[in-house]
C-alpha cells in the first residue's frame, strides 16, 4: 500500500522527507536532537547543581541562588574539608561500612544465586507438594509457639524440625503430586514482589534475639536475601544459553558438577554475571529501608548517615550533603568501569526477554 503522508513539492514536505533509507530528514534531525539535548539538560542540571552547591559557603546558599563558580560566587572547599579532613573519622566509618556490606552481600548473593540458577537449569528437582505443605505448617507452629506462647525459639525450632522430619519420613511416601523446576524458579523470583516492610519486623526481632542488631552480618544477610531473586532471574537465562555439549564432554572426562560449574559454566557466563553483579551492587549500595530498621550506629551505612546528618537542629546542611552525594557516586562509577569490559553488548536484552 503506497501512502505519502505529506505532499513532496511543498517546503514543509521536503523538510520532513528523508534523503534516503536509514537517514533522517532535516526536520526529523531538529526534533531528535532537540529531544536529546533537552533530556540531557534535565538529567545533568540536578547533578551540576549538586556539584556547585558542594563548593558554596552557607551564605551563598541561603541568600538566594547563585549559579556559576568564579562568576557570581567564590568557590570554597569548606564542606569538602569538613567531611574529608576534620570530620574524616565520622565520615569514614559509615563509608567503610557501606563498602564492606555492599561488597560482601553482593558476592554472597552472586555466588548463592548463580549456583541456584544453574541448578535449576541443569538438575531436575521434584520436591513433593505434601512435604512442602508439612514444612510450612511446621514453620507456622513454630512461629505461633515462639510468638504467642513465648516458648524459647531454640526449643521451638528443634521440636518443629523433629516433627517435620518424622512426618516427612512416614507420611512422605504417600504424597504423589510434586512441583517442577519451573515452579521453584517462579517461587524464588516472586520473592521480589514481597515488600521488605512485610518481613522486616520479624527479621528485626530475630536479629534482636540473636543479639545481631546493628551488626554488619545482619545487614549483609538481609541484603543478600532481598537481591537473590534478581540474581536467580537474570543468571537463569545466561546459564540456559550455555551449550550443554561442553558440560557433557567435561563430565565424560570425570569432572564433578562443582568443577564444571566453577571452571566451565561460570567463565562462559561472565558477561551476564558482571552485569548482574553491577546491578545488585548498586541496589545494595543505595539500600535504605532495611538499614533504617536494622542499623543505628555501629553498622550505619551511608544512606542512613545522609538522612541522620540532616535531621539535626541546624536543618539541612546542603553543602556537606552535596559532598556526600558526590563521594557516594564515585565507587559506583569505579565499579562500573571495572565491570564494564565484561559486559558485552546486548546483555540486557538477553536477560529481559519477555
Amino acid at each position: 500500500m503506497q501512502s505519502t503522508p505529506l505532499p513532496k513539492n511543498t517546503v514543509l514536505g521536503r523538510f520532513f522527507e528523508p534523503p534516503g533509507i536509514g537517514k533522517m530528514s532535516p526536520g526529523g534531525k531538529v526534533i531528535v536532537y532537540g529531544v536529546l539535548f533537552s533530556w540531557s539538560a534535565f538529567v545533568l542540571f540536578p547533578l551540576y547543581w549538586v556539584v556547585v552547591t558542594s563548593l558554596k559557603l552557607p551564605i551563598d546558599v541561603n541568600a538566594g541562588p547563585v549559579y556559576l563558580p568564579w562568576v557570581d560566587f567564590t568557590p570554597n572547599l569548606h564542606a569538602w574539608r569538613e567531611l574529608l579532613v576534620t570530620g574524616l573519622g565520622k565520615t569514614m566509618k559509615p563509608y567503610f561500612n557501606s563498602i564492606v556490606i555492599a561488597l560482601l552481600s553482593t558476592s554472597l548473593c552472586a555466588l548463592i544465586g548463580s549456583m541456584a540458577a544453574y541448578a535449576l537449569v541443569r538438575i531436575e528437582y521434584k520436591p513433593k507438594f505434601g512435604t512442602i505443605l508439612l514444612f510450612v505448617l511446621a514453620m507456622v507452629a513454630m512461629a505461633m509457639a515462639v510468638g504467642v506462647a513465648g516458648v524459647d525459639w531454640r526449643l521451638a525450632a528443634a521440636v518443629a524440625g523433629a516433627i517435620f522430619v518424622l512426618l516427612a519420613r512416614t507420611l512422605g511416601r504417600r504424597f504423589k503430586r510434586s512441583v517442577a523446576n519451573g515452579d521453584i524458579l517462579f517461587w524464588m523470583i516472586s520473592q521480589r514482589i514481597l515488600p521488605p516492610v512485610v518481613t522486616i519486623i520479624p527479621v528485626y526481632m530475630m536479629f534482636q534475639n540473636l543479639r545481631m542488631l546493628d551488626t554488619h552480618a545482619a545487614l549483609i544477610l538481609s541484603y543478600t536475601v532481598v537481591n537473590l531473586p534478581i540474581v536467580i532471574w537474570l543468571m537463569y537465562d545466561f546459564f540456559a544459553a550455555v551449550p550443554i555439549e561442553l558440560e557433557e564432554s567435561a563430565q565424560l572426562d570425570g569432572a564433578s558438577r562443582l568443577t564444571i560449574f566453577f571452571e566451565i559454566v561460570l567463565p562462559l557466563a561472565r558477561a551476564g554475571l558482571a552485569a548482574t553483579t553491577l546491578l545488585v551492587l548498586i541496589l545494595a549500595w543505595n539500600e535504605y529501608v532495611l538499614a533504617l530498621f536494622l542499623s543505628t550506629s555501629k553498622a550505619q551505612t551511608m544512606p542512613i548517615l545522609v538522612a541522620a546528618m540532616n535531621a539535626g537542629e541546624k536543618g539541612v546542611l546542603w553543602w556537606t550533603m552535596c559532598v556526600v552525594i558526590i563521594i557516594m557516586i564515585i565507587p559506583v562509577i569505579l565499579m562500573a568501569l571495572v565491570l564494564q569490559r565484561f559486559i558485552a553488548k546486548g546483555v540486557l536484552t538477553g536477560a529481559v526477554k519477555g
Partner: protein
Amino acid sequence: MPSVFSEWLDRQSRHLFIMPAVIMILVFSIFPLIASAILALSRVRLRAGGYKVTFVGFANFKKQIFGSEQFHFLGTFGSISLLAWAFTIAVGALLIWWLLRYLRGPVWWLGLIGRLIAAAVLFGIAFMFAATLLSGTQIGTLGVTLFYVFVGCTAQFAIGLGLAVVCAQPIRGRTFFRVVFFLPLMITPIGIGYAFRMLADTTKGPFAPLWQMVGLGDYAWVTSPWAARFFIIVADSWQWIPFIFVVLLAALENVPRDMVEAGHVDGASHSQIFREITWPQIAPVAATVILIRVIEAFKLVDLPNIMTAGGPGIATESMTLHAFFAWRAPDLGQSAAISYLLLFVTVVLCVSFFNLVILKHRSAQG
C-alpha cells in the same frame, strides 16, 4: 586426587547447589512472612526484655479499613457525590461485563477465583477513589501509593519509550547520550531526594527568579498535597526513566533492520512502521519492564520520607512509610497489618497483570 570427601561432595552437589538459596529464602522471607501474619492478628506490647503478644483476630485490619485509622489508610470518607456514584457504578458494570465474558469461554476454577479476587480489589479501589478523590476529601496512604505506582509508571514508561525510540535513530554522539541518560541510576535515592528538594525551593533554589517572575515567590511545594505528590513523582521518574530507557533501547536494537527497511520501501509512514513492525517485537520486553517497575514502585519509601516526611499531613505518605511510622510509634501489630495490606494489593495487581497481560500476550505470540 579423588578423596572420600570430594566424592561425598559430588554426590551431594544436587542439594549443595540449591539449598543455600532455599534456606536463605525460608529463614529470611518465608518464616518472617508467617510471623508477620501472626503479628498482624495480634496486639504487641513492649515488655522488659521482650514482647507480649495477644491474639486479637482481625482487629488491626478492621481498624485500618473501617475504624479510627480509616482516614489514614483509605482516606476521609464524607458524603459521596453524584459523580462518585456514577463512577463506582460504571466501574462495577465494566467488571461484571468482564467476568461474564470470561464465563462464556472455557472456565478454569482457579482462573475464576483469581478473576473474582482481582475484580473485587479493583472495585474496592475504584470505590475508595470515588468516595475520597471524586467527593472532594483527602485520599489515604493506599490512594497515594496507587497514585505513585500508576501515574509514575505510566509517565516513566511513556518518556522512557520516547527516548529509546529517539536514541535508536542514526544519531551522532550515541555513546555520550547513553552515558548521560544512564547516570541517574547510579545516584543514591536519598541524594536524589535532597537534590530535588533544593531544586524545587522557591526562594533558594536555582529557579527562584523564575518563580518570583510568575508571582509564586513564596509558594511552598511541600504545603500543597498535589504539588508535593507530583514533585515526588518527578524525582522518582528522574531516577527510573533511565532503567526503562536502557532496557527498551536494547530491545529496539534487536528489531531486525531489514523488516523496518522493507516497511520503508513499501512506503509505510513512521507511525505505521512503529505500530505494525517495531511495537509487536518489543512488546514482551515492554510488559516485563513495566512489571518490574510497578513492583518496585509499590515499595517506594525513601523519596517521600526525605522530601516531605510524608507531609503535608499524610498527603505524600506511601504505605511502606505508613508501616514504618506505625512501627516507630511503636505499634507493631498495626504496622504488620498495614504491610500485609500492601502485600495483598501488590500481589493481586501484579499477578493479575502477569496473568492477564504478559501470559496472554505470550500465548498469542507462540
